[in-house]
């Protein structure tokens, strides 16, 4: 990239440099807003802005007090606990159901494959406001609105499309003769599933599970409509904080969430690399 082909004129080289510059600016546009909240969360004053002291790197202008505030606030602690609990339960349901369904769907004998796929992926496409409104009507009739079960079921439904997609993709490179070989050699189907299919699609299953978890962990509209005060989650708490009382506690929470997403991202990249290796191995 560093060298331009010889036949490029000066203007073309300049144009190419311009494109590269734009690319870098866009990268900055993507990442800067996220980075900017990190120093702001250490603001000693209750504002969303850089104070003069902060710009002068005066240590007294920085403080950990917003982090301490999270730990001292029962509402935030409850929200954190709820987010993990609901996310965890929803992920288990979504992963089990999504993985089995993806295996079934990848079978060439499956009738109405395309239609069913479109239906199963629709929770990802339908605007959340519609989903949330419908769930509010239906779940109150079932008397599970305002309960953990209601929120968990709703989040599980929203998470399944991601599991179906990732497992489906993992199965794309899957060699079905392996199953036949395993069964043909007398292995039981359950044994075949765990010893033959599972190792090959595991990266897909795990990344699907991660997606499902993040979907629940990040979701606020359904929580807004379905959850009661006891089921408050982190995003719900942030949403009301941003609407009602803007203070840097939210920035501190946001910084922690950025850390979590960075961890998730690294896990995903690691899984992807492994998935590619496994698939390369089977071919």
């Amino acid at each position: 990239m560093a060298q331009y082909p010889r036949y490029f004129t000066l203007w073309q080289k300049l144009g190419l440099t311009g494109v590269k510059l734009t690319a870098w600016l866009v990268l900055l546009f993507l990442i800067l807003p996220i980075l900017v909240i990190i120093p702001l969360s250490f603001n000693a004053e209750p504002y969303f802005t850089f104070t003069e002291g902060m710009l002068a790197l005066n240590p007294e202008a920085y403080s950990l007090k917003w982090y301490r505030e999270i730990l001292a606030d029962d509402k935030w602690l409850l929200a954190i606990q709820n987010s993990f609990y609901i996310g965890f339960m929803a992920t288990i349901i979504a992963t089990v159901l999504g993985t089995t369904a993806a295996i079934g769907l990848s079978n060439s004998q499956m009738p109405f494959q395309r239609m069913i796929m479109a239906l199963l992926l629709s929770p990802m496409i339908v605007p959340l406001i519609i989903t949330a409104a419908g769930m509010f009507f239906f779940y109150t009739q079932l008397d599970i609105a305002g309960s953990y079960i209601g929120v968990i079921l709703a989040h599980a439904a929203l998470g399944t499309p991601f599991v179906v997609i990732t497992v489906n993709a993992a199965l794309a490179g899957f060699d079905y003769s392996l199953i036949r070989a395993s069964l043909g050699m007398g292995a039981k189907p359950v044994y075949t599933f765990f010893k033959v299919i599972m190792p090959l699609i595991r990266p897909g299953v795990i990344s699907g599970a991660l997606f499902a978890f993040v979907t629940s962990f990040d979701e606020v509209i359904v929580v807004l409509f379905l959850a009661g005060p006891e089921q408050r989650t982190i995003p719900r708490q942030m949403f009301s904080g941003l609407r009602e009382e803007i203070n840097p506690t939210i920035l501190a929470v946001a910084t922690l969430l950025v850390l979590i997403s960075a961890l998730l991202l690294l896990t995903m990249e690691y899984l992807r690399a492994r998935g590619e290796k496994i698939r390369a191995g089977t071919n």
Partner: protein
Amino acid sequence: MKKKLTSLAAAVAFGLAANTAMADEMTAVSFGGAYGAAQQKHMIDPYMEKTGHNILFENYSGGVAELKAQVESGNVLWDVIDMEVIDLERACSEGLLEVFPHDVLPPGDDGTPAAEDFSEEALANECGVGNIVWTVLYAYNHDTIEGGEPSTMADLFDTATFPGKRALRKRPQVNMEWALLADGVPKDEVYDLLATEEGQARAFAKLDTIKDDIVWFDSWSQAPQLLNDGGAVMVQSANGRFFAAIQEENKPFEMVWDGHVFDLDVWAIVKGTDKKDLAIDFIKFATGSKPLSGMPEVAYGPTRQSSYAYIDENVIPKLPSAHLDEGLKASSIFWADYGESLGEKFNEWLLK
């Protein structure tokens, strides 16, 4: 691996059981901010300490909509609610609240029976128990105001003398009254006039004159922030919000008492809650002489006489009760009847 999974499943199942079986927990909602903090300190925390019950204390930003959604869908999430009387009247007449048995209220600390100790308005509605007197007024920031110092309601609408944005709460309540007051209507005629088509048109016409200069917000708590960061030069809010900013953060804010619209806040019980007894018990405690006497910390006046024994004499003149002559009492009957239709007209006017 298997063992781990079973123990995990057990932990999860236990977690579920623990979450559903938690007894004696209820949810109270109020307005948050400094007011909420004072209620937490003087009502919620002492009650939890005294009885061992757990109260989830949530914020809401007023109105009856959320309450209505809960009661009508049968999905009741709140148990006790702190609301403005203009909302109380409507909520009570629409069956969204339980009737509160006023005769169970304990006498004041000085022995005065509750019926005499509370001010008349505090027990006027069968669904609630008065808590505090508060008011809505506007304030300006000495650092950002230009063109002098506003002192009347007309000044709020005078963008020629006092240029800059005005921040008002996005609802017809108070704004309609202010528009008529600024247009020269005497206080005692405001609500009669607002009940007519002409009066409403006149109020909207007055609001039209500053429409382009208005910043709308949804919750009182946003107001001090707007005044502080220069989002607006004159800002409407509850007096307690400004009081906290002036008192605790030394903000150069000045409150303008002319034409302030005062009202009561009441505790009430949500219709259909399964914690009604606990809710009554809490309200009995929260409206006691001592807990109420903590409210002036945020510049709201208690509704029972016996509380004043606990209040610093220097604070009493700073409460809204000292400025009643300059203000207008919000009409709860008017807003119960017209709140909805004016709300719609107001929204249409906003979109125009």
